[in-house]
């Protein structure tokens, strides 16, 4: 939705980089995503012991960053977008982790006196 016309000028440095990756690079990223998914899939058949869950989470994180960084152009776009995403992500993880911990702390022996 176009804004109403303001005569605003830019007071924040424009870091927008119009040089997006080429189609070829996108396909390469997708290839990497394919490989990562295949690795994730393989964990269903191979047991990695205590590293199993961390490994899956790391793979997930890499995929996340590839899609966000390249397909969503976060790597090339202005900082504000990255900040918004990180705020949302970190905020959600912190709050829900805290809530989960609080939920699990209570079960017994916690009377107030």
């Amino acid at each position, binding site marked *: *939705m*176009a*804004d109403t*016309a*303001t*005569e*605003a*000028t*830019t*007071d*924040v*440095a*424009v870091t*927008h980089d119009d040089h*997006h990756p*080429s*189609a070829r690079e*996108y*396909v390469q*990223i*997708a290839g990497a*995503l*394919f490989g990562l*998914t295949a690795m*994730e*899939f393989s*964990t*269903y058949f191979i047991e990695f012991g205590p590293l*199993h*869950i961390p490994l*899956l*989470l790391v*793979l*997930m994180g890499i*995929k*996340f960053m590839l*899609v*966000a960084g*390249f*397909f*969503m*152009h976060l790597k090339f776009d*202005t900082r*504000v*977008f990255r900040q*918004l*995403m990180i*705020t*949302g*992500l970190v*905020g*959600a*993880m912190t*709050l*829900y982790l805290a*809530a*989960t911990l609080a*939920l699990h702390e209570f079960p017994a022996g916690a009377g107030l006196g």
Partner: protein
Amino acid sequence: MSAAVEETSMGIDNRKLGMWVFLGSEFMFFGAFITAYLLYLNTTAGGPTGEIFDIVYTSISSFVLLMSSLTMVLAHNAHVHGDMRRMRLWILATALQGLVFVGGQAYEFTKFVNEGLVPTGSPFASAFFVLTGFHGIHVTVGIILLLGLWSYTHTGKVKSDQPLKTEIIGLYWHFVDIIWVIIFVVVYLIPWG
């Protein structure tokens, strides 16, 4: 478009900024569902557990959704280069993959219900269906957006010099994909039991 962009305080189009602001809040949305799911992993009330998931099947549909992100970004790329024919093609491909994913989910839901995993059965089942269901609704909205975009390229509402429109819808689409990247691992792959 560019004229308007340069007038804004941050040098960004309002619509793109608005979309990012919205996506920031979506993390809180899905975060709450995922938290509820993790909380209820073991509360199956005697009903089916996560064992019921068909990893092979879901891996394929996850892969389809992941690749739809590729076609989405290729559509944007074509639009940037003014190649509307390719752009339309990639948009349709993206929508189609989205449809395959949603269709697959509908089939999966039906199968689970037949096997006794019903949303009213246990907190685990409720959390699973509501989490993946809301993701499915997001994909569906994305498909509607893509089809709208596709049809407007024909009416002249979306012109070849307006790749921003494709980019913004793309942001939404990739976000939905990212959420599935998380759900796929957290819900399906990690053997919590």
